């Protein structure tokens, strides 16, 4: 699964720490999601989407291998 989290964050001009605090996870988790090393749960994906006021599909996308 790939995501546009880094881009969305740049558009909204918030840091990894800000996003982490907004959804109640660690900075490490945001970092690993951004670098496609960790796939968040549905709850976390929905929370992230809510921060950016976008549907989940706008941020997270399935890849060919999934």
């Amino acid at each position, binding site marked *: 699964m790939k995501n546009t989290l880094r881009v969305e964050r740049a558009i909204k001009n918030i840091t990894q720490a800000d996003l982490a605090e907004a959804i109640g*996870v660690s900075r490490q988790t945001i970092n690993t999601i951004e670098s496609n090393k960790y796939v968040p*749960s549905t709850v*976390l994906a929905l929370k992230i989407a809510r921060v950016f006021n976008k549907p989940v599909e706008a941020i997270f996308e399935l890849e060919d291998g999934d």
Partner: protein
Amino acid sequence: MSNIFDICKVCFTFGKSNFTIMKSQFLFPTWTRWLGLALFLVHLPVMHIWDIYHIHSYNDGNLFSLSHLFFISTVVLMVLGLFLIAFSRERIEDEQIYQLRLASLRWAIFANYFVLIICLIFTNNKADYKDLLRLNLWVPLMSFILIFRWKIFRLNRLLKAGE
């Protein structure tokens, strides 16, 4: 009737909070990690005294004799220390930590059974079984702590590399 309704409401909200916030995990507070470390460190000199003064040679087979009390104190200190270190809450306990903890537990069980099977193959003496039991006491907890800490260290290194 209103009582039943209240009970249902309590059950419902309790159930809901369990699902939305991950509070269902049973873990000790973060500070108990340092208490655990202290207990483990205290056990080392106590164990040394045990060896120097040959207290195990006073073993008369009675329950709560000197040697038995010494044995209890060292073993309980070590196991309690490791237990508290292993099962204390992280500062930010999120779903990734939960997943890492689970993966580390799996590896720890693998390691423990690997050691156990190897020991079972290479022991043929009844006296060795006591050592085997003692080994089994700390191998799962110790390997869990080491693997879990290593995974968290790697996570932090990734964060530093990303900055």
